[in-house]
Protein backbone atom coordinates (compact mmCIF):
# COMPACT_ATOMS: atom_id res chain seq x y z
CA UNK A 1 0.00 0.00 0.00
CA UNK A 2 1.68 3.23 -1.06
CA UNK A 3 1.51 6.53 0.73
CA UNK A 4 -0.91 8.15 -1.67
CA UNK A 5 -3.56 5.47 -1.25
CA UNK A 6 -3.30 5.48 2.53
CA UNK A 7 -3.51 9.26 2.61
CA UNK A 8 -6.56 9.17 0.39
CA UNK A 9 -8.44 6.65 2.53
CA UNK A 10 -7.47 8.32 5.80
CA UNK A 11 -8.56 11.67 4.40
CA UNK A 12 -11.86 10.21 3.26
CA UNK A 13 -12.34 8.55 6.66
CA UNK A 14 -11.69 11.79 8.54
CA UNK A 15 -14.00 13.73 6.22
CA UNK A 16 -16.96 11.36 6.62
CA UNK A 17 -16.24 11.03 10.36
CA UNK A 18 -16.38 14.77 10.84
CA UNK A 19 -19.42 14.81 8.55
CA UNK A 20 -21.08 12.34 10.93
CA UNK A 21 -20.36 14.58 13.93
CA UNK A 22 -21.79 17.57 12.05
CA UNK A 23 -24.86 15.49 11.16
CA UNK A 24 -25.32 14.53 14.82
CA UNK A 25 -24.98 18.16 15.80
CA UNK A 26 -27.34 19.64 13.22
CA UNK A 27 -29.84 16.96 12.33
CA UNK A 28 -30.04 14.82 15.48
CA UNK A 29 -29.20 17.40 18.13
CA UNK A 30 -30.47 20.90 17.62
CA UNK A 31 -27.28 22.90 17.50
CA UNK A 32 -29.11 25.61 15.59
CA UNK A 33 -31.02 26.58 18.73
CA UNK A 34 -27.75 26.73 20.63
CA UNK A 35 -26.60 29.75 18.68
CA UNK A 36 -25.98 32.29 21.36
CA UNK A 37 -28.31 35.02 20.31
CA UNK A 38 -27.94 37.98 22.64
CA UNK A 39 -30.41 37.60 25.46
CA UNK A 40 -31.50 39.40 28.58
CA UNK A 41 -32.74 38.12 31.91
CA UNK A 42 -36.17 38.34 33.41
CA UNK A 43 -37.25 37.16 36.83
CA UNK A 44 -40.61 36.01 38.07
CA UNK A 45 -41.75 34.78 41.48
CA UNK A 46 -44.27 31.95 41.61
CA UNK A 47 -46.16 30.39 44.53
CA UNK A 48 -45.55 26.98 43.03
CA UNK A 49 -43.49 26.04 40.02
CA UNK A 50 -44.80 22.49 39.73
CA UNK A 51 -42.46 20.36 37.64
CA UNK A 52 -40.57 23.24 35.99
CA UNK A 53 -37.02 22.23 35.14
CA UNK A 54 -33.86 24.08 34.18
CA UNK A 55 -33.61 24.83 30.44
CA UNK A 56 -37.36 24.49 30.11
CA UNK A 57 -38.68 26.68 27.27
CA UNK A 58 -40.13 30.12 27.74
CA UNK A 59 -42.89 30.62 25.19
CA UNK A 60 -44.93 33.54 24.00
CA UNK A 61 -47.97 32.61 21.91
CA UNK A 62 -46.48 29.12 21.63
CA UNK A 63 -43.18 30.28 20.16
CA UNK A 64 -40.00 29.48 22.10
CA UNK A 65 -38.33 32.79 22.91
CA UNK A 66 -36.06 31.79 25.78
CA UNK A 67 -35.05 29.24 28.39
CA UNK A 68 -35.29 28.89 32.15
CA UNK A 69 -31.85 29.61 33.50
CA UNK A 70 -32.15 29.33 37.25
CA UNK A 71 -34.74 28.35 39.83
CA UNK A 72 -34.26 29.27 43.46
CA UNK A 73 -36.34 29.46 46.58
CA UNK A 74 -36.69 32.87 48.17
CA UNK A 75 -36.73 32.31 51.96
CA UNK A 76 -38.15 35.75 52.72
CA UNK A 77 -41.15 35.60 50.39
CA UNK A 78 -41.50 31.81 50.54
CA UNK A 79 -41.85 31.78 46.79
CA UNK A 80 -39.89 30.27 43.92
CA UNK A 81 -37.93 32.81 41.89
CA UNK A 82 -37.33 31.75 38.29
CA UNK A 83 -34.66 33.45 36.18
CA UNK A 84 -35.19 33.15 32.44
CA UNK A 85 -33.00 34.29 29.60
CA UNK A 86 -35.09 35.75 26.82
CA UNK A 87 -33.98 36.56 23.30
CA UNK A 88 -32.90 40.20 23.02
CA UNK A 89 -35.13 40.66 20.01
CA UNK A 90 -38.31 40.27 22.04
CA UNK A 91 -39.30 42.97 24.48
CA UNK A 92 -42.16 42.60 26.94
CA UNK A 93 -44.29 45.22 28.64
CA UNK A 94 -44.14 45.70 32.40
CA UNK A 95 -47.56 44.15 32.98
CA UNK A 96 -46.70 40.89 31.24
CA UNK A 97 -48.25 37.83 32.86
CA UNK A 98 -45.98 34.80 33.35
CA UNK A 99 -47.75 31.50 33.88
CA UNK A 100 -46.49 27.97 34.31
CA UNK A 101 -48.18 25.73 31.80
CA UNK A 102 -48.02 22.14 30.67
CA UNK A 103 -48.19 21.08 27.04
CA UNK A 104 -50.76 18.33 26.99
CA UNK A 105 -51.65 16.23 30.00
CA UNK A 106 -48.23 14.65 30.45
CA UNK A 107 -46.14 17.01 28.32
CA UNK A 108 -43.25 19.21 29.30
CA UNK A 109 -43.70 22.12 31.69
CA UNK A 110 -42.93 25.56 30.31
CA UNK A 111 -43.41 29.24 31.10
CA UNK A 112 -45.91 31.14 29.00
CA UNK A 113 -45.61 34.91 28.69
CA UNK A 114 -48.69 36.97 27.83
CA UNK A 115 -47.84 40.54 26.97
CA UNK A 116 -49.96 43.29 28.47
CA UNK A 117 -50.71 46.80 27.28
CA UNK A 118 -48.16 48.83 29.25
CA UNK A 119 -45.97 51.09 27.12
CA UNK A 120 -42.98 50.63 29.44
CA UNK A 121 -40.88 47.60 28.67
CA UNK A 122 -39.13 45.22 31.07
CA UNK A 123 -35.38 45.84 31.20
CA UNK A 124 -32.57 43.31 31.77
CA UNK A 125 -33.04 41.77 35.22
CA UNK A 126 -36.60 43.03 35.40
CA UNK A 127 -39.18 41.33 37.60
CA UNK A 128 -42.47 40.10 36.22
CA UNK A 129 -44.95 40.84 38.97
CA UNK A 130 -48.06 39.20 37.58
CA UNK A 131 -47.61 35.46 37.76
CA UNK A 132 -49.80 32.43 37.71
CA UNK A 133 -48.55 29.29 39.43
CA UNK A 134 -48.48 25.78 38.13
CA UNK A 135 -51.73 23.90 38.20
CA UNK A 136 -51.11 21.00 40.54
CA UNK A 137 -53.28 18.13 39.40
CA UNK A 138 -53.81 16.76 42.91
CA UNK A 139 -55.04 20.12 44.18
CA UNK A 140 -57.30 20.45 41.16
CA UNK A 141 -58.86 17.06 41.75
CA UNK A 142 -59.17 17.83 45.46
CA UNK A 143 -60.95 21.09 44.71
CA UNK A 144 -63.22 19.39 42.21
CA UNK A 145 -64.26 16.75 44.75
CA UNK A 146 -64.78 19.41 47.41
CA UNK A 147 -67.02 21.50 45.12
CA UNK A 148 -68.93 18.43 44.00
CA UNK A 149 -69.54 17.40 47.61
CA UNK A 150 -70.69 20.91 48.46
CA UNK A 151 -73.20 21.08 45.59
CA UNK A 152 -74.50 17.59 46.40
CA UNK A 153 -74.91 18.60 50.04
CA UNK A 154 -76.85 21.72 49.05
CA UNK A 155 -79.11 19.70 46.77
CA UNK A 156 -79.85 17.31 49.64
CA UNK A 157 -80.68 20.22 51.97
CA UNK A 158 -83.08 21.66 49.43
CA UNK A 159 -84.85 18.35 49.01
CA UNK A 160 -85.39 18.02 52.69
Amino acid at each position, binding site marked *: *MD*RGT*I*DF*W*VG*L*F*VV*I*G*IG*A*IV*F*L*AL*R*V*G*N*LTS*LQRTPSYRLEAAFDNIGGL*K*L*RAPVKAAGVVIGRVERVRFDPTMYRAVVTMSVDQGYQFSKDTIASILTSGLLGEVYIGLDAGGDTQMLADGGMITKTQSAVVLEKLIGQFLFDKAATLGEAKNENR
Partner: protein
Amino acid sequence: MPADALTFVIRRIGRATQESVGRLGFATRFFALVLYHSPAAFMRLQLTFREIYFSGVLSLVIILVSGLFVGMVLGLQGYDALNKYGAGDSLGIFVGLSLVRELGPVVAGLLFASRAGSAVTAEIGLMKTTEQIAAMEMMAVDPLARIVAPRFWGGIISMPLLAALFSVLGVFGAYIVGVRLIGLDTGAFWGNMRAGIEFWPDVTNGIIKSIVFGIAVSLIAVFEGYVATPTAEGVSTATTRTVVESSLAILALDFLLTVFMFRGGA
Protein backbone atom coordinates in the same frame (compact mmCIF):
# COMPACT_ATOMS: atom_id res chain seq x y z
CA MET B 1 0.34 -30.10 56.59
CA PRO B 2 -2.55 -27.61 56.87
CA ALA B 3 -0.25 -24.82 58.02
CA ASP B 4 1.90 -25.24 54.92
CA ALA B 5 -1.18 -25.24 52.67
CA LEU B 6 -2.31 -22.01 54.32
CA THR B 7 1.05 -20.28 53.79
CA PHE B 8 1.02 -21.50 50.23
CA VAL B 9 -2.40 -19.96 49.58
CA ILE B 10 -1.47 -16.70 51.29
CA ARG B 11 1.78 -16.55 49.32
CA ARG B 12 -0.08 -17.09 46.05
CA ILE B 13 -2.62 -14.37 46.84
CA GLY B 14 0.14 -12.02 47.93
CA ARG B 15 2.15 -12.62 44.77
CA ALA B 16 -0.87 -12.18 42.50
CA THR B 17 -1.78 -8.90 44.22
CA GLN B 18 1.79 -7.67 44.10
CA GLU B 19 2.07 -8.58 40.43
CA SER B 20 -1.16 -6.89 39.39
CA VAL B 21 -0.37 -3.73 41.35
CA GLY B 22 3.11 -3.72 39.84
CA ARG B 23 1.62 -4.20 36.39
CA LEU B 24 -0.74 -1.30 36.95
CA GLY B 25 2.19 0.82 38.08
CA PHE B 26 4.16 -0.10 34.98
CA ALA B 27 1.10 0.62 32.81
CA THR B 28 0.89 4.11 34.33
CA ARG B 29 4.60 4.71 33.74
CA PHE B 30 4.15 3.35 30.22
CA PHE B 31 1.25 5.78 29.63
CA ALA B 32 3.45 8.68 30.73
CA LEU B 33 6.26 7.45 28.46
CA VAL B 34 3.90 7.15 25.49
CA LEU B 35 2.65 10.69 26.12
CA TYR B 36 6.27 11.87 26.36
CA HIS B 37 7.06 10.25 23.01
CA SER B 38 3.81 11.45 21.42
CA PRO B 39 5.29 14.47 19.63
CA ALA B 40 7.18 11.92 17.51
CA ALA B 41 3.85 10.54 16.29
CA PHE B 42 2.95 13.98 15.00
CA MET B 43 6.41 14.77 13.64
CA ARG B 44 6.20 11.73 11.40
CA LEU B 45 2.53 12.03 10.50
CA GLN B 46 2.89 9.34 7.86
CA LEU B 47 3.25 6.68 10.55
CA THR B 48 0.13 7.86 12.37
CA PHE B 49 -1.80 8.05 9.10
CA ARG B 50 -0.88 4.45 8.41
CA GLU B 51 -2.28 3.43 11.81
CA ILE B 52 -5.46 5.45 11.29
CA TYR B 53 -5.83 3.54 8.05
CA PHE B 54 -5.38 0.15 9.73
CA SER B 55 -7.45 0.74 12.85
CA GLY B 56 -9.93 3.32 11.55
CA VAL B 57 -10.58 2.87 7.86
CA LEU B 58 -10.46 -0.93 7.96
CA SER B 59 -12.90 -0.98 10.92
CA LEU B 60 -15.42 1.02 8.92
CA VAL B 61 -17.27 -1.96 7.47
CA ILE B 62 -18.00 -3.66 10.79
CA ILE B 63 -18.86 -0.33 12.46
CA LEU B 64 -21.22 0.83 9.72
CA VAL B 65 -23.01 -2.50 9.32
CA SER B 66 -23.37 -2.99 13.09
CA GLY B 67 -24.63 0.56 13.50
CA LEU B 68 -27.25 0.07 10.83
CA PHE B 69 -28.52 -3.16 12.36
CA VAL B 70 -28.45 -1.87 15.94
CA GLY B 71 -30.47 1.13 14.77
CA MET B 72 -32.99 -1.02 12.95
CA VAL B 73 -33.46 -3.30 15.97
CA LEU B 74 -33.84 -0.26 18.23
CA GLY B 75 -36.43 1.06 15.81
CA LEU B 76 -38.48 -2.13 15.92
CA GLN B 77 -38.21 -2.77 19.66
CA GLY B 78 -38.59 0.89 20.58
CA TYR B 79 -41.69 1.27 18.45
CA ASP B 80 -43.17 -1.89 19.93
CA ALA B 81 -42.70 -0.61 23.49
CA LEU B 82 -43.58 3.05 22.84
CA ASN B 83 -46.67 2.28 20.82
CA LYS B 84 -48.27 0.59 23.83
CA TYR B 85 -48.46 4.04 25.41
CA GLY B 86 -49.43 5.74 22.20
CA ALA B 87 -46.01 7.37 22.04
CA GLY B 88 -44.82 5.79 18.80
CA ASP B 89 -44.00 9.24 17.47
CA SER B 90 -41.29 9.56 20.11
CA LEU B 91 -39.27 6.82 18.43
CA GLY B 92 -36.86 9.40 17.03
CA ILE B 93 -35.88 10.81 20.41
CA PHE B 94 -35.66 7.33 21.96
CA VAL B 95 -33.35 5.98 19.27
CA GLY B 96 -31.34 9.19 19.00
CA LEU B 97 -30.71 9.51 22.73
CA SER B 98 -29.77 5.88 23.25
CA LEU B 99 -27.38 5.94 20.30
CA VAL B 100 -25.76 9.31 20.89
CA ARG B 101 -25.38 8.94 24.66
CA GLU B 102 -24.66 5.24 25.15
CA LEU B 103 -24.77 2.74 22.33
CA GLY B 104 -22.73 4.74 19.83
CA PRO B 105 -19.63 5.17 22.00
CA VAL B 106 -19.95 1.86 23.89
CA VAL B 107 -20.74 -0.57 21.06
CA ALA B 108 -18.36 1.18 18.67
CA GLY B 109 -15.74 1.00 21.43
CA LEU B 110 -16.29 -2.73 21.98
CA LEU B 111 -16.12 -3.41 18.26
CA PHE B 112 -13.06 -1.21 17.95
CA ALA B 113 -11.35 -3.11 20.78
CA SER B 114 -11.99 -6.47 19.13
CA ARG B 115 -11.29 -5.36 15.58
CA ALA B 116 -8.42 -2.89 15.93
CA GLY B 117 -7.13 -3.23 19.51
CA SER B 118 -6.46 -6.95 19.17
CA ALA B 119 -4.69 -6.38 15.85
CA VAL B 120 -2.41 -3.74 17.38
CA THR B 121 -1.52 -6.03 20.30
CA ALA B 122 -0.82 -8.96 18.00
CA GLU B 123 1.32 -6.81 15.72
CA ILE B 124 3.46 -5.32 18.49
CA GLY B 125 3.66 -8.69 20.26
CA LEU B 126 4.85 -10.39 17.10
CA MET B 127 7.39 -7.63 16.48
CA LYS B 128 8.72 -8.34 19.96
CA THR B 129 8.73 -12.11 19.34
CA THR B 130 10.65 -11.73 16.09
CA GLU B 131 13.03 -9.36 17.91
CA GLN B 132 12.25 -6.42 15.64
CA ILE B 133 11.83 -4.19 18.69
CA ALA B 134 15.20 -5.29 20.08
CA ALA B 135 16.74 -4.63 16.66
CA MET B 136 15.30 -1.12 16.65
CA GLU B 137 16.74 -0.42 20.07
CA MET B 138 20.10 -1.63 18.75
CA MET B 139 19.87 0.92 15.97
CA ALA B 140 19.07 3.63 18.56
CA VAL B 141 15.52 3.95 17.22
CA ASP B 142 13.14 4.32 20.15
CA PRO B 143 10.34 1.76 19.64
CA LEU B 144 8.04 3.87 21.83
CA ALA B 145 8.30 6.76 19.39
CA ARG B 146 8.40 4.69 16.22
CA ILE B 147 5.97 1.83 16.97
CA VAL B 148 3.87 2.60 20.04
CA ALA B 149 3.04 6.31 19.84
CA PRO B 150 1.66 6.28 16.25
CA ARG B 151 -0.60 3.29 17.07
CA PHE B 152 -1.75 4.94 20.28
CA TRP B 153 -2.69 8.19 18.55
CA GLY B 154 -4.12 6.46 15.51
CA GLY B 155 -6.61 4.72 17.81
CA ILE B 156 -7.48 7.90 19.70
CA ILE B 157 -8.17 9.79 16.46
CA SER B 158 -10.17 6.95 14.89
CA MET B 159 -12.42 6.16 17.85
CA PRO B 160 -14.61 9.32 18.04
CA LEU B 161 -15.08 9.31 14.27
CA LEU B 162 -16.13 5.66 14.31
CA ALA B 163 -18.53 6.24 17.21
CA ALA B 164 -20.12 9.21 15.42
CA LEU B 165 -20.52 7.14 12.24
CA PHE B 166 -22.04 4.31 14.27
CA SER B 167 -24.63 6.70 15.74
CA VAL B 168 -25.45 8.22 12.37
CA LEU B 169 -25.93 4.82 10.73
CA GLY B 170 -28.03 3.74 13.73
CA VAL B 171 -30.30 6.76 13.38
CA PHE B 172 -30.53 6.04 9.67
CA GLY B 173 -31.44 2.39 10.41
CA ALA B 174 -34.15 3.49 12.83
CA TYR B 175 -35.40 5.92 10.18
CA ILE B 176 -35.67 3.10 7.64
CA VAL B 177 -37.62 0.91 10.07
CA GLY B 178 -39.70 3.63 11.70
CA VAL B 179 -40.60 5.80 8.74
CA ARG B 180 -40.26 3.53 5.74
CA LEU B 181 -41.42 0.21 7.20
CA ILE B 182 -43.81 1.11 10.03
CA GLY B 183 -44.99 4.34 8.45
CA LEU B 184 -44.34 6.95 11.13
CA ASP B 185 -44.43 10.55 10.01
CA THR B 186 -41.02 11.80 8.80
CA GLY B 187 -41.55 15.20 10.38
CA ALA B 188 -42.49 13.72 13.77
CA PHE B 189 -39.47 11.40 13.69
CA TRP B 190 -36.89 14.12 12.99
CA GLY B 191 -38.74 16.87 14.83
CA ASN B 192 -39.03 14.94 18.10
CA MET B 193 -35.42 13.90 17.79
CA ARG B 194 -34.23 17.45 17.35
CA ALA B 195 -36.49 18.75 20.10
CA GLY B 196 -35.29 16.18 22.61
CA ILE B 197 -31.58 15.98 21.90
CA GLU B 198 -29.32 18.90 22.61
CA PHE B 199 -25.90 19.30 21.06
CA TRP B 200 -24.72 20.33 24.48
CA PRO B 201 -24.72 18.15 26.59
CA ASP B 202 -25.99 15.04 24.76
CA VAL B 203 -23.88 14.94 21.59
CA THR B 204 -20.78 16.46 23.16
CA ASN B 205 -20.87 14.02 26.07
CA GLY B 206 -21.11 11.15 23.61
CA ILE B 207 -18.02 12.48 21.82
CA ILE B 208 -16.16 12.87 25.14
CA LYS B 209 -17.06 9.28 26.02
CA SER B 210 -15.77 7.97 22.69
CA ILE B 211 -12.48 9.88 23.10
CA VAL B 212 -12.02 8.44 26.60
CA PHE B 213 -12.77 4.92 25.29
CA GLY B 214 -10.31 5.52 22.46
CA ILE B 215 -7.58 6.41 24.96
CA ALA B 216 -8.38 3.38 27.13
CA VAL B 217 -8.51 0.85 24.27
CA SER B 218 -5.38 2.21 22.55
CA LEU B 219 -3.38 2.28 25.77
CA ILE B 220 -4.40 -1.27 26.71
CA ALA B 221 -3.68 -2.52 23.18
CA VAL B 222 -0.17 -1.05 22.90
CA PHE B 223 0.66 -1.92 26.52
CA GLU B 224 -0.40 -5.56 26.22
CA GLY B 225 1.55 -5.87 22.98
CA TYR B 226 4.63 -4.25 24.47
CA VAL B 227 4.72 -6.44 27.59
CA ALA B 228 3.66 -9.65 25.81
CA THR B 229 5.77 -12.73 26.50
CA PRO B 230 7.74 -13.13 23.25
CA THR B 231 6.34 -16.54 22.35
CA ALA B 232 3.46 -17.64 20.13
CA GLU B 233 1.47 -18.46 23.26
CA GLY B 234 2.40 -15.13 24.86
CA VAL B 235 1.14 -13.16 21.87
CA SER B 236 -2.16 -15.06 21.83
CA THR B 237 -2.62 -14.49 25.59
CA ALA B 238 -1.82 -10.79 25.15
CA THR B 239 -4.40 -10.46 22.35
CA THR B 240 -7.08 -12.09 24.48
CA ARG B 241 -6.17 -9.89 27.42
CA THR B 242 -6.52 -6.79 25.25
CA VAL B 243 -10.04 -7.68 24.21
CA VAL B 244 -11.15 -8.66 27.73
CA GLU B 245 -9.49 -5.72 29.50
CA SER B 246 -10.63 -3.14 26.93
CA SER B 247 -14.21 -4.37 27.06
CA LEU B 248 -14.27 -4.26 30.87
CA ALA B 249 -12.56 -0.86 30.85
CA ILE B 250 -15.11 0.52 28.37
CA LEU B 251 -18.09 -0.68 30.39
CA ALA B 252 -16.67 0.48 33.72
CA LEU B 253 -15.60 3.87 32.33
CA ASP B 254 -19.00 4.24 30.69
CA PHE B 255 -20.70 3.83 34.05
CA LEU B 256 -18.37 6.35 35.69
CA LEU B 257 -18.73 8.89 32.89
CA THR B 258 -22.51 8.49 32.84
CA VAL B 259 -22.65 9.12 36.58
CA PHE B 260 -20.76 12.37 36.09
CA MET B 261 -22.51 13.47 32.91
CA PHE B 262 -26.18 12.65 33.31
CA ARG B 263 -27.02 12.40 36.98
CA GLY B 264 -30.67 13.16 36.55
CA GLY B 265 -30.36 16.73 35.29
CA ALA B 266 -32.06 19.77 36.83
